[in-house]
């Protein structure tokens, strides 16, 4: 028996190696968990990089200037249906060119299609306005004035003849959509695009607080 005691060293080594390997990699899926953890670390490192970039952007934001930019955008496309402002714009444009407003017809929406699914479009402020007779250059002038106003106006239709000019205009409007801070998603790039749009809006004018009133009587106020 004593003669074979030397075999204990290699056998013990083998047993130790097997046991330690089993202990480290075999028990309860330790190796799989370890690999999973490594993947998690990599994912977290990617998130850290995104958040660091985002944090740098957030820290560089001038909240006051951003609010001013938002106000400028809101003056062009308001968050509420400013139908009275639109009517004032139409009256003002007519008055500047000496054309009286004969009638208004306003709608908070339009019928999209003649089917069961037809429904009022909530994102449109539509007004049909009829001006008294005038020269065509006056009509062109009215359109030019309307396109220079804030909130923005879209001229959808014009019917002009010697007796009258009828315009269908849409006032810009976009409701607030619920926007919440999302720490995981990167911020949209705003600076350059905002400056471009601000440049486009720079030539536009706010409606004067005092509207030039027509000197002629008989201006029909909107019937709705």
């Amino acid at each position, binding site marked *: 028996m004593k003669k074979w005691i030397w075999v204990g*060293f290699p056998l013990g080594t083998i047993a130790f190696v097997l046991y330690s390997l089993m202990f480290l990699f075999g028990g309860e899926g330790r190796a799989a968990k370890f690999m999973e953890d490594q993947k998690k670390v990599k994912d977290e490192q990617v998130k850290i990089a995104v958040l660091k970039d985002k944090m740098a952007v957030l820290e560089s934001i001038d909240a006051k200037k951003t609010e001013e930019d938002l106000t400028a*955008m809101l003056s062009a496309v308001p968050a509420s249906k400013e139908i009275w402002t639109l009517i004032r714009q139409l009256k003002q444009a007519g008055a500047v060119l000496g054309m009286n407003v004969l009638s208004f017809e306003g709608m908070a929406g339009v019928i999209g299609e003649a089917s069961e699914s037809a429904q009022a479009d909530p994102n449109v402020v539509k007004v049909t306005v009829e001006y008294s007779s005038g020269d065509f250059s006056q009509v062109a002038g009215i359109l030019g004035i309307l396109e220079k106003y804030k909130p923005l106006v879209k001229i959808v239709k014009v019917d002009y003849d010697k007796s009258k000019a009828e315009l269908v205009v849409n006032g810009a409007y976009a409701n607030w959509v619920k926007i919440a801070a*999302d720490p995981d998603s990167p911020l949209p790039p705003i600076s350059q695009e905002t400056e471009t749009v601000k440049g486009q809006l720079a030539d536009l004018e706010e409606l004067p607080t005092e509207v030039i009133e027509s000197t002629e009587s008989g201006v029909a106020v909107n019937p709705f």
Partner: protein
Amino acid sequence: MTEINLLAKEDLTNVNLEKIKTKVRMITTIFLVAYLVIMSGVLGWWWYSSNNQKKVSEELRSLYWQVAGKSKEDTLVRKLDKRRQDVTGFLKGRGNASDSALGMINSEAVVDGWNYTLGGLTVVSVKSADQWSISRYAENLSQLYSQVRFDTIEYDGATWSAELSLGGKK
């Protein structure tokens, strides 16, 4: 040269066994040392990875807190971006009616009627004292529109009048 082994047979077996023992011990020792070195590296890496994982998780949590602290700015930027898109979309889709109207005005003829629809066909009625002015008027319009078509042309003995359909603003 022939080697003569003078040892007894049992002693010879013992010598061979000693050689095997020595070899086995040597191989086992080398293997064990190599194994221990490798395992030390693996365990070291494991230990580092576990610590690093904690550190990364803490850093991530801290960054989330920092970003959450700036949620007002985050929301403001998203609101601005959304409103900018609304403005851009409206500006793109509103056409340029005044420009179209100004395009109708020229000295060749007087505009008597104008029917404009955003994104659709424009119809203009004009009148003039002579037919050549009407023709020149249409020619001028063909520089602004790819389709210029005479719908009607009339003469009442004194004035020429025409109705033109215009499409495909250049």
